């Protein structure tokens, strides 16, 4: 079928949605479509899915496309379904601390609205102004405050999903505790749009903290042992940091102007409790050469800058230069070793490396910049170290050309047959986000 036929079919089917040919599909990141559809209703979303599934069309899904560089080995599918016009708050029950939203709503828009009620979604994804809540949920994102906040999976209490055959399936509900049937929410959160389109999300909310602060502790380069023993001691205390993020010197320089290994410790609570915890840190033998405290607005601004450090799928490079973002999962304290390894990568492979990782949960982000060949070599070395630590490394952002030569998911787990079985049950024709997920699902 030629593109113009596809467009006329869909336009007549969906008078209320925007359907348009894409003049030049994104070559650089891929995951694009010949035509782009931006539905405004759930009915239209279901209708597009049904149509694509019946007519053997392939379909990519995007919120705002900040994650266009995440997974996928194809330049384009027949249809790109954009959720960016399907947005807004459906219901906010202030007293129940729950909110129901449409997936295309930008994350920051939700937070700004909720703050007028002294509430928030307890998540801090990067690029919050561009990232849609649907994308954050589909990618199960979490940010530097993971330690205190958890990840998307901990906050979603209900979903409406449009399945590839166009049926709407509800999971969970509007209550914060619920074990009726399988916990299907968990299956959909993080499924990267490979099982269905999220059309409605119910989230549980938390109160805005009454006060927050951020302590920046700097360490001289050789003192990783010191950091380790400080971290062990601090984690063994009864303090309750929401973040304990270690930043490599290059990353720290971008945020603080000082090129030195830095530990960012954040507190959120009533003011007296935050100050008490600051004092506790000050009285510990941390081995830090410097300690700075940013309070309230200053802390907020630091995190805001932090959330825009890394590239997103809306930014392209020229020539042979490339950027990659690798998410590494290891055991908590092995984060220190991953950051050490990052320094080494810089020298060994002639790439620039910005990295941070959370003591207390073990997730790191490593941002690499350099020539394409060097990036690939650097990722290989990093993966070797990660493997020794029993962890994993997933490349969250990489140009399409490189994604076609390196498995961004790092191979198939032993239980791959279960993942494949789930995909095949729900999307037997492989209509959605083809080849975007683990093991080419």
């Amino acid at each position, binding site marked *: 079928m030629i593109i113009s036929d596809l467009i006329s079919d869909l336009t007549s089917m969906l008078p209320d949605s925007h359907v348009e040919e894409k003049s030049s599909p994104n070559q650089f990141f891929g995951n694009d479509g010949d035509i782009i559809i931006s539905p405004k209703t759930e009915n239209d979303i279901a209708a597009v899915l049904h149509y694509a599934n019946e007519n053997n069309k392939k379909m990519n899904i995007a919120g705002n496309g900040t994650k266009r560089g995440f997974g996928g080995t194809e330049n384009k599918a027949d249809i790109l379904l954009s959720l960016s016009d399907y947005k807004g708050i459906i219901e906010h*029950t*202030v*007293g*129940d601390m729950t909110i129901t939203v449409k997936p295309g709503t930008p994350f920051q828009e939700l937070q700004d609205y909720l703050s007028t009620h*002294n509430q928030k979604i307890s998540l801090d994804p990067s690029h919050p102004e561009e990232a849609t809540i649907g994308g954050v949920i589909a990618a*199960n994102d979490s940010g530097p405050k993971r330690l205190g906040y*958890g*990840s998307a*999976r*901990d906050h979603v209490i209900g979903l409406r999903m449009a*399945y590839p055959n166009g*049926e709407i*399936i*509800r999971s969970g*509900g*509007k*209550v914060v*505790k*619920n*074990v*009726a*049937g*399988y*916990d*299907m929410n*968990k*299956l959909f*959160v*993080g*499924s990267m749009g490979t099982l269905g389109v999220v059309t409605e999300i119910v989230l549980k909310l938390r*109160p805005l903290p009454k006060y927050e602060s951020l302590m920046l502790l700097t360490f001289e380069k050789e003192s990783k042992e010191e950091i380790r023993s400080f971290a062990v001691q601090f*984690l063994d*205390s009864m*303090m*309750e940091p929401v973040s304990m993020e270690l930043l490599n010197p290059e990353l720290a320089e971008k945020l603080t102007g000082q090129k030195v290994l830095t530990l960012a410790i954040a507190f959120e609570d*009533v003011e*007296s*409790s935050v*100050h*008490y915890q600051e004092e506790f840190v000050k009285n510990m033998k941390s081995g830090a050469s410097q300690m700075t405290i940013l309070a309230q607005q200053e802390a907020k601004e630091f995190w805001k800058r932090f959330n825009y450090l890394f590239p997103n799928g809306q930014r392209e490079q020229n020539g042979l230069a490339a950027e990659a973002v690798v998410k590494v*999962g290891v*055991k*908590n*304290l092995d984060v220190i070793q991953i950051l050490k390894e990052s320094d080494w990568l810089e020298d060994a492979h002639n790439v620039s490396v910005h990295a941070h990782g959370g003591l207390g*949960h073990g*997730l790191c982000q490593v941002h690499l910049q350099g020539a394409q060949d060097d990036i690939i070599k650097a990722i290989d070395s990093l993966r070797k170290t990660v493997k020794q630590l*029993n*962890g*994993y490394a997933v490349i969250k952002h990489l140009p399409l050309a490189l994604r076609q030569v390196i498995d961004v998911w790092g191979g198939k*787990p*032993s*239980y*791959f047959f*279960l*993942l494949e*079985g789930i995909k095949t*049950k*729900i999307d037997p024709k492989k209509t959605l986000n083809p080849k975007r*997920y*683990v093991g080419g699902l």
Partner: protein
Amino acid sequence: MLRKKGLKTHDKHIKKLAAIVGPKEILFHKEELISYESDGFTIHSHMPKAVVFPTNTEEVAEVVKYCSDNDLPFLARGAGTGLSGGAIPLNGEVIISLVKMKRLLSVDLENRRAVVEPGYVNLKLTNSISDKGYYYAPDPSSQYCCTIGGNVAENAGGAHCLKYGVTTNHILGLEVVTPTGKIMEIGHDGIPDAPGYDLLGILTGSEGTLGIVTKITVRILKNPEEKQTVLAYFDDVADGSQAVSDIVSAGIVPAALEMMDKIAIEGVESAAFPVGHPKDIEALLLIEVDGISAGINEQINEILDVCKKRNVRSVKVAQDDEERAKWWANRKTGFGAMGTISPDYLVQDGVIPRSTLPEVLKRIGEISKESGLRIANIFHAGDGNLHPLILFDSRIPGQTDKALEAGSACLQACADAGGSITGEHGVGIEKREEMRFVFSDKEIEAQTDIREVFNPHYLLNAGKLFPSPGRCAEVKKELKAAE
């Protein structure tokens, strides 16, 4: 548990199973099986074929493989405290009891995790790390005897889940024997966010229908620096419920926020751990706040203010750990306490949006009148999880059915209020039909589709969790399978 009779049998399956687990680790004589006919949902029972007690994962896998290859239905069982009938052998299953796999395998304080076998008892974990200042957060009232494997299967909650989350929020890794006998490790070394669909998430709360858990990596937490507990008495249930909303609206996230009504109080006061609650009050709130010491008093003062604004009759703060422990023992033994004021009781487990509490309580009052049965209410008010306890006497013909009907009506009331039919006890056998209160046929089919991926021959714990076929979706599926 030791078999009193010898291993004399002509049943080749029994012989083979005995060969796998050892002749001492199997029960199959009728009189030995009686205590395995049922679990905490005593209204229902059925005889198993046998009970085996494997001592390691390989034995579990071998038993499963044998059952799977020979078309023998089977299921897992922990302590048997489940309240929805999940461990009842409806189809004459071979019961795989995990109680002999009860070791604490490792504790890694630096990385805040512990690895346990499935038969390890919940409270033992906290007890074995408390000297170092750590604990395991999910605290079902049955924690002194239920197993962590059973907790994973039911996604168990507890009083302190309001702030710290339920079981699923504390599971970092699982070793699972699939229903066809493969051993899978999910969430290697307890590292979060393993690439791929969230199998930990779907397995937790799957009520033993997707696999048998043989090893669990859990998150452990550091004890809060300080804890304060408040007890408040109200003359009007509506005031008590309003106070619950006000506390949460004030931006406080209590560690626990529990409520009991008049009949429940009558029960706990006549049982083993009376506190001396006044008998004429309509409702009490038990509120616990924990965290950094410097911030606690501020929150306690706010809570006291809220209670006063809502016409509290009296309110007090626990003076020491001893008093706090007394209040909690009184609350945590609340279900059993009903036994002192009624020959039988049925525990229900609905969830509602917190703001609908007054209207739903009113409806439950009406259901009580309509059925002629007394209904006590004990609940995790902070997260809207109600436990209506329906008091009845099974010796009176027809009362058991009446109690079941009243229970179902309570769940309907929860569903009508925008809630759910179970918050922590699971669907099991008990609430299969009530699944239709909250899910359409297609939504149920979406779930049984997932079951088919894991449990293709449907020999593991069949007949649980979903309404029996008979309506279009599953019938269609059966036809499809028969083609």
